[in-house]
């Protein structure tokens, strides 16, 4: 976003800063406009100006160019807004972690910034306040690809605190890329929920009139205030239209499209609920609110890895990773298979005490290591099949299980116990 090289120096000499009105003269051409940040993909010799008609243009700067500051940038302050409180309404908590949904655009520069304050976030959807009192907090301002296991822990603690101090539900605005991991982590870390914990994202940023953020946030608020749900869910658009949203079980949900509004799908299970306008319809069995308090099991051991098996996977690579971790989740082919060569690696890893769990890269359907000899050999080598658990959920669960106990038998027992709806035994036709 910064100017570098010759242009950068020229602007510095002229004491021109972003947001200043400058005059750029080159030969007979003169342009006056606001100096805009350098676009990442803009050519190095180009200065971006916002003209008085609102358009940005790129103009070339070279030795012949003369830059002059016409006027300095006007500092414009955003009004500080205070959240209202209505004793007749229930309290919900909004704990923001960042991502598209919790960002706003600086219309001056076009840059997308994370929301600075929770108030900013709430006031971008003032309708929320019609439904509930909102306790808002910005916990993180990160893109979801930068999430780490420690972030999940901090988030779980914050959620438990809110629920244990009277919030009827918690909304977690989150970047969509890894939202399914976070929802799974919360599902394992938080027990005995007194209300729904709803991870909400947006596939279109809220600077756009077509953003899906507003509808998703409103539906999440309704689910917090008007339902008996006591689970961790991901709530997003149910289809491309702005017609209804779906709440998916936190351990059974996956982002299945890179850009569509309805990217999130329940895999190997039905969504829990459908929210259409003010209507909430439950579509499958779900846990109801408990009397509390919420139990926090936030210990987690990050020394695990997830491997996607593919033809040509070299045993060396597997071994290298196995040497650095305590546990591995393998997303095998089909029913859960790996090659004969990797079979040896699995065996070596298990012998060294590394946990090896098997899921399927098909995502839909369960693993079954009884059908083919490869599968049977994998079980003999010490790999443990995880039914229809999603690879990502299995990876999160393994780290969580390793955080709960050091006893391999206990880890195995935890992994095979259905704790947060991560297993389904029947998959419907």
């Amino acid at each position: 976003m910064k100017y570098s090289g010759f242009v950068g120096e020229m602007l510095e000499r002229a004491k021109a800063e972003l947001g200043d009105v400058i005059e750029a003269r080159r030969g007979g051409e003169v342009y006056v406009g606001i100096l805009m940040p350098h676009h990442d993909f803009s050519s190095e010799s180009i200065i971006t100006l916002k003209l008085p008609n609102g358009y940005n243009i790129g103009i070339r700067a070279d030795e012949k160019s003369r830059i002059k500051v016409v006027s300095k940038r006007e500092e414009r302050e955003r009004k500080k807004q205070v959240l209202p409180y209505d004793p007749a309404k229930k309290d919900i908590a909004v704990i923001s972690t960042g991502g598209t949904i919790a960002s706003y655009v600086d219309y001056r520069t076009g840059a997308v910034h994370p929301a600075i304050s929770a108030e900013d976030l709430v006031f971008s959807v003032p309708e929320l306040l019609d439904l509930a009192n909102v306790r808002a907090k910005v916990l993180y301002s990160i893109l979801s690809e930068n999430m780490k296991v420690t972030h999940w822990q901090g988030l779980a603690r914050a959620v438990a605190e809110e629920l244990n101090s009277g919030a009827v539900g918690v909304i977690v605005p989150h970047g969509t890329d890894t939202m399914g991991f976070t929802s799974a982590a919360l599902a394992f870390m938080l027990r005995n929920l007194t209300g729904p914990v709803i991870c909400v994202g947006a596939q279109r940023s809220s600077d756009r009139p077509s953003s899906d953020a507003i509808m998703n946030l409103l539906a999440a608020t309704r689910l917090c205030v008007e339902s008996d749900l006591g689970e961790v869910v991901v709530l997003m658009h149910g289809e491309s239209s702005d017609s209804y949203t779906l709440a998916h079980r936190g351990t059974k949900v996956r982002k299945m499209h890179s850009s569509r509004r309805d990217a999130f799908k329940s895999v190997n299970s039905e969504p829990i609920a459908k929210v259409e306008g003010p209507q909430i319809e439950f579509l499958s069995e779900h846990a109801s609110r408990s009397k509390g308090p919420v139990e926090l099991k936030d210990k987690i051991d990050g020394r695990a890895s997830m491997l996607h098996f593919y033809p040509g996977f070299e045993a060396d690579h597997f071994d290298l990773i196995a040497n650095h971790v305590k546990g591995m989740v393998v997303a095998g082919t089909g029913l859960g298979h790996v090659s004969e060569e990797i079979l040896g690696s699995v065996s070596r890893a298990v012998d060294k005490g590394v946990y090896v769990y098997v899921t399927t890269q098909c995502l839909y359907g369960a693993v079954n290591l009884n059908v083919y000899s490869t599968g049977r050999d994998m079980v003999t080598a010490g790999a443990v099949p995880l039914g229809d658990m999603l690879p990502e959920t299995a990876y999160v669960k393994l780290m969580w299980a390793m955080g709960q106990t050091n006893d391999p038998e206990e880890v195995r027992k935890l992994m095979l116990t259905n704790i947060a709806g991560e297993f389904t035994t029947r998959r419907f036709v």
Partner: protein
Amino acid sequence: MDYRSLGLKVGIEIHQQLSTGKLFCDCQCDFSDDHHKEIVRRLRPTQSELGEIDRAALEESERKMHFRYQTVPYSCLVEADEEPPHDANRRAIEASLEMSALMGMKAVDEVHFMRKIVIDGSNTGGFQRTALVSTRGSILVGDKRIGISTLCLEEDAARKLTEHGSEVTYRLDRLGIPLIEIATDPDMATPEEAKYVAERIGALLRATKKVRRGIGTIREDLNISISGGARVEVKGAQELRLIPVYVEEEAKRQLALLDAKRILRERGAKPMSLDIKDISPLFRETRCKVLKGALEEKGRVLAVKLRKFAGTLGSTENGVKRLGPELAAHARVAGVKGLFHSDELPGYGVTMTEVEDTQSALGAEPEDAFVMVADSVDKAMAALSRVVDRANAAIGGVPEETRDPLPDGHSVYSRPLPGKDRMYPETDVKPILVNETVLESIKLNLPELPEEKVSRFVEEFGISKEQADSLVKSGYEDEFELLAGSFGNSQVVARIYLNTFPELEKIGLNPSSLNLDVVKDVLTNLKAGAFAKEAIPDILTSVLQNGYSVERATETLGVEKVDLDSVRAVCDRVVRAKEKFIRDRGQESLGPIMGLVMKELRGKVDGKVISEILRERIKLLLT
């Protein structure tokens, strides 16, 4: 009207679709008659950096619209706002650089796309992508130099099909077609000048051969003002011939509004606060169908008094409309069907007694006017609130606004002029460096200019300079060149476009909807002798009116080929019947006799053939 003393100023924005493929995806640009899937969406105004919301944007969302987007089999996720835009179409960028060069404009060094907020649903994302490509050029029209301020490249909006209540249906086939937007300086001072400028820019655009052709592929926005008036944008005019009419009507409208302002000022009218009265009880027994219907639907009749407005709402003596239609258009934005105002009452079944009762209920003096609306309380309140706002604006004169053109040359209020600062960078699209080599090669390969084409047509096709000039202005020069080139007979081809088409337009048909193949069929059949050239207007009329093929139209019109023997027979018969007349008049009788024969054979045989045969027969008789 003396436009110069009125201080008429007109600027034009021309939007021309390009034939280079869509701007940000790889979909076909064809329009589709039916649709595939539907997506229903809402758009919502977004806050600006300072928490401000755009005037126009707010108004659109007040209507609580939802939008039904119909996809066609070749729609993609980019068009559905479900995938980021692809890289900007190179050929479209080059076409806009070429057009810039034709108008002597200065191109920017790097093209940056912006998002312009538009929440009427016409763009699935709620914004239109647009980029400024070049600035500061000019064109010569007659001997007047007209400044061209900007040339932008933007994406076209989705095609609006219907609007029912709060639902607007759009089809995605048009969305994303590249548009060149050319904005002139406000240099035009008469309605005719506006037309000439539009013609000239249209001809230059067609000269690039990179533009789409046909109805709706070129649209004009007219920015019109007179001294003391305000800039009003008549948006989306499609017919060149109506441009001077829109300008003239808008000048008249602004004059009438200034006149109303004068009256209001003289009477000391002041901005009014909203004071709505429910006068439903006065109309319990009314014979007015509109009011009665609304009351039966559990609606109410609400009214407001407009202090000092009597006489400013109805039409002037010359039939120029004043504030009435303006107030009604604003009321309709709130969702009501219309309103009644005191200048048109008694009328529409509302009696004098009811008018007087209303006046006394509102405490109206003779100089006061009133407006009433019958609908559900919410809608009627919203409508009257808008009416009072618009009436207050009338005290100030002409408000700036956007208006929709109507087919009769008038226009109707559509929304306030959009605010300025609703544009921000489209960060999903890479900036495009304008390469010096590309620019050089464009400059070296500029297309044939319209005036060069005129000279060439005269030389190559033997038509007159006037004909060639008219062809280039009409926009049918490419069709003419193609057809005259392959069929010869350039006079016949020129006449189809220059005479027949305007005649068809005059009787309310739309000849521009005829595709090239139809005209080609006509010429093929003419060449084969299926009919005479005189039959062409009737055949095209039938094709347009009945949707027939050329063959079918020819058959049903009975203009099938008549062989020369029967022509001779008809001539002989007429000559025998008029023998005395011919002997009296000699060779001079040819004209009148020709008329008689043509009555029977018009359209079936070329007049030239008939006159030759007749001349020969008359000569034979006289010797």
